[in-house]
């Protein structure tokens, strides 16, 4: 009986909170480019909120989305406009922007009731294009392709002035998002999502209305993306359509895949991995690589990410999270015949 709730045991959250609290100080002690690292961590945190939601939709429910950069954009622009042009407080606009994005998620969910797989991928990708077009067209609010400057986050009279403040703001939401998502997947909702992915027949026989739960999945996933977008707008303080490129949607999928789908933690790990690679590792090799391959910077990034995704799908389909689980089993059993379980 005892171990049954282990997975939902939230003791590890305390550890995580401690880690999140300490990281800035560790970084400060370790490196001079501390500010840049914090900035990169902030981007990773924002993307984590989104990819956790993407895992619910694409990992758990099996509905491919190549349009999540579009949801991120809707969240970002909604919140920027609500706060700076409609005068709504930041705290309220976080909720409103998430809900607005959720409604768009529902709208994209409707075609998903009829199509799946590659066609759904293409449809959601088209959605991403349309969002960018519409943002440019709504010049009066969005400043079109010039981009939009956004105010700092303000909560309960406190203004988040720098990257350290933003860091704590963002990671508070990361932790909430992870807890919420884990709770969702371990509940009636999560079981319905997985049943839709693996066996529509079993789901229906169990009384699950496939359409209803697909829509709920799109709605929830878009809410996560909208929240991420709102945080993005106010902590980065400048948004333009370039921030929500179609390629970003594909990177989100890579993050979930590399981390390990259908685990939530995998999305977090994969996002941290890919963002670190993108902002910290790849730049180091850019010059070196471009000398003998004559590639543009953007091409190198795509090349490396494509390669990583390929390698993971072939050699480590359970992703980084799968590796971690195996390692844990390995160390638990360590001196006693670990090889047997290490497969």
């Amino acid at each position: 009986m005892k171990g049954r709730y282990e997975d939902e045991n939230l003791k590890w959250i305390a550890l995580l909170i401690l880690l999140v609290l300490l990281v800035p100080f560790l970084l400060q002690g370790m490196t001079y480019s501390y500010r840049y690292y914090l900035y990169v961590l902030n981007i990773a945190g924002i993307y984590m909120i989104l990819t956790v939601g993407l895992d619910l939709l694409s990992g758990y429910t099996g509905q491919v989305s190549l349009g999540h950069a579009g949801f991120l954009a809707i969240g970002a622009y909604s919140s920027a406009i609500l706060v700076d042009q409609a005068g709504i407080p930041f705290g309220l606009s976080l909720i409103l922007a998430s809900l607005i994005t959720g409604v768009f998620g529902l709208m994209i969910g409707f075609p998903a009731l009829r199509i799946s797989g590659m066609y759904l991928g293409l449809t959601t990708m088209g959605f991403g294009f349309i969002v960018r077009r519409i943002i440019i067209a709504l010049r009066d609010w969005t400043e079109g392709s010039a981009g939009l400057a956004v105010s700092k986050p303000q909560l309960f009279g406190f203004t988040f002035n720098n990257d350290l403040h933003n860091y704590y703001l963002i990671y508070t939401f990361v932790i909430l998002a992870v807890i919420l998502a884990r709770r969702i997947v371990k509940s009636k909702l999560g079981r319905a999502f997985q049943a839709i992915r693996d066996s529509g027949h079993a789901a229906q026989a169990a009384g699950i209305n496939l359409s209803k739960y697909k829509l709920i999945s799109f709605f929830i996933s878009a809410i996560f993306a909208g929240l991420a977008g709102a945080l993005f707008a106010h902590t980065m303080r400048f948004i333009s359509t370039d921030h929500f490129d179609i390629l970003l949607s594909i990177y989100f999928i890579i993050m979930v895949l590399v981390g390990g789908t259908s685990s939530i933690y995998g999305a977090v790990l994969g996002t941290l991995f890919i963002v670190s690679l993108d902002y910290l590792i790849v730049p180091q090799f850019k010059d070196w690589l471009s000398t003998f391959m004559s590639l543009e910077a953007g091409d190198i990034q795509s090349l490396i990410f494509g390669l990583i995704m390929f390698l993971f799908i072939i050699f480590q389909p359970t992703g980084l999270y799968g590796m971690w689980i195996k390692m844990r089993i390995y160390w638990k059993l360590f001196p006693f015949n670990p090889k047997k379980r290490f497969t």
Partner: protein
Amino acid sequence: MADLVIQNISVYFSGVVALDDVSLTVPSGSIYSLVGANGSGKTTFFNCVNGFVKPRRGNIFFNDSNLLDRSPHEIIHAGISRTFQNLENIPYMTVLENVLLGNHTRISAGGTFQRWVSRKQREKEESDGLKMLSFLGLANYEQKYLTGQPYAIQKLVEIARALVCRPQLIMIDEPAAGMNDQESMEMAKIITEIRDELGITVLLVEHDMNLVMSVSDRICVLDSGRVLAEGTPDEIKTHPEVVKAFIGEGADA
């Protein structure tokens, strides 16, 4: 009262006659078996009751409501659940989670939220599933992931999933397929217990004739979508059409 009454249903698949004017009544509280050669329409019959296939003609009544008016996901609300011939399980959920999936309609959405904060609520939600697992002798499996479990275990998990919502009638499609004699005998015992201890009517499709003969109250023999014979096991054994068909089959083989 809670008899399942099928009246004159016919199903055609692009020229193939899957069910041809089938009428039968599954009495409440009985174990009723459908038998017949491969492709004789047994699974299609389940699919009709379950709403996956809409018959061209006919009616299906249960508790005085016409099941044909319902979508597949509404059938469980009428008190009917089922298992599948080919395993339809969720491989990356635990055995317990697979069983709880079957209780979807009885777990309130509000309870879901409560469950996030209250362990008591969580235990209440899980207790139905655990009871069903121990009823089927699977108590040790609750925490295991379904993927990689032996076929016989997966079959039982499906049955547990269909039973956990306490339906009035369960349709079981080939529970003993691929099982050895001893496993089949255990399955026969379980089927009897489902009716005797849980009070659930059983509609069974099974190729293992020993099992069918030993558990059934009534048997219906389908042949190319038509009802060839219907009656108690003894009547079926001596039914001239059935005997003819069996001998005919034997001569072919």
